[in-house]
């Protein structure tokens, strides 16, 4: 080891990448978010080929690789397919832990819808039914649904 190394103190430089982003939601996603905001309704789209009802809606089916035109209104309630109760905190989380993430199969859909459960964490089980709770102030965001609650 070189002699000078013994006096070296490992320094760090603090930095943060702060690039502003505005992601275009696109026509398909915008219709979905507008419906959450304006009508408190959850919309999906249905693949003409395999019949899968997607929520959030897709402009095309990834499996069949065809365009999707058909819109369907789906229920604001469904069944928990998988869940986790989160105990660690970091800045992007919209709510303080503990809270839960759940994949919820909304009635009338064929895929899991990812969202939050904030209450009754000790009662959550896969297979239980939950219902969307909408925020009073809605802006056209996935968080216009505040969370899902056990029925």
């Amino acid at each position, binding site marked *: 080891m070189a002699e000078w190394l013994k006096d070296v103190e490992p320094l760090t430089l603090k930095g943060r990448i702060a690039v502003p982003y505005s992601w275009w939601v696109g026509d398909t996603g915008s219709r979905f978010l507008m419906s959450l905001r304006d009508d408190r309704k959850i919309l999906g789209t249905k693949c003409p080929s395999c019949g899968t009802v997607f929520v959030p809606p897709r402009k095309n089916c990834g499996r069949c690789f065809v365009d999707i035109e058909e819109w369907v209104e789906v229920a604001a309630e469904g069944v928990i397919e998988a869940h986790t109760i989160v105990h*660690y905190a970091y800045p992007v989380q919209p709510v303080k832990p503990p809270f839960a993430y759940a994949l919820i199969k909304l009635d009338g859909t064929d895929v899991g819808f990812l969202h939050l459960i904030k209450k009754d964490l000790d009662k959550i089980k896969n297979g239980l039914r939950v219902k969307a709770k909408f925020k009073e102030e809605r802006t056209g965001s996935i968080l216009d649904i505040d969370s899902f609650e056990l029925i």
Partner: protein
Amino acid sequence: MDNAAIVGVAQTKYERRKKDQILADLVFDVTRAALDDAGLAIGDIDSVVTVSNDFFDGRTISGMAVGDAAGGEDKNISTVSGDGAFGAFYGLMRVLSGYKATIVVAHYKGSEGSVPITTNGMFDPIFHRHLGIDAISAAALQADAYMARFGIREEDVAQVSVKNHGNAKNNPYAQLPMDITVADVMKSRKIAEPLKLLDCCPISDGAAAIIIANEEIAARTKKKPVWVKGVAHCCEEYFLGDRRLSDPVALQDAARRAYAMAGITDPMAEIDVAEVLEPFSYMEPLWLEGLGFCKPGEGAHLIEKGITTMGGRLPVNPSGGALSANPILVAGLARLIEATLQVRGEAGDRQVKNAATALAHGFNGPCGQSHCVWIMGGKK
């Protein structure tokens, strides 16, 4: 496929914080060490692939920081942004296309960024990211879906952590060699249920390099070449809710094609050792199912029966796996390096006896969305 071999490997020791070296230093060290291992000079290398990721490095065009350190000066060079197993795949394709020797380097410093924030960036910016989901919480959903479907207990997957941290004691490169018990795992801090601290990989710093060469170069390298027998990768759907998280279909497809290329019909009988990328304990049994070593839902029985332990029929992760060191991106390359060392018979105290055929695996994307499977062997 023409013959191609891994002829040189190198890795740094994996540590929580490498305070004394920048990424380029780490890459230079492993590049030089891989050349030494192969007995080649930088002039023998005609192609370079770096494995670099702008999010994790906090830098756009992240490959720029390490290209020269990887010997890229006046050479055909490129950057794969993804796990090292995929970077190695690109390296292989370049050799099969006519390059003599490609060096593939991967680098990661978890100590310099935020794992939740950078992995939150994997998720859909419109529908998922604002929910705060990241690699850990998504993995917890997969763990729940998998364990609930097959009735797997937390104690069952905890055994994977016990085994892999124990294996790490024999790996001088590992970050977390530990003597722990299932009880220790069970009582460790809850992270995202059912995952507890000891079900999760650490945050790591490190780098690794391999040299893939054609037959002409492989005939004159210092170490025994380890040949590529089969390799394939495959990706499934993106949205977590579109997938059946307990069914690793992309892994099944990649494994099927890699086995076909390698002429493997009965993986359990024909593969001697496997290194799979398991940043979370439940992933090891789930991936073993996907790789066809057992039926769906039976992955956890393999460890219970001692099959995947060091003395078992199929030792899995003798290196200690990603649970014992998880420099993201480097981690898949580290699996391939361990497979190479095993086939060479150079794995020291963790050597699996008569390891002639080894499997290595890496993946990209949340909950293992895109998998890459390698079969390596001692004979052409």
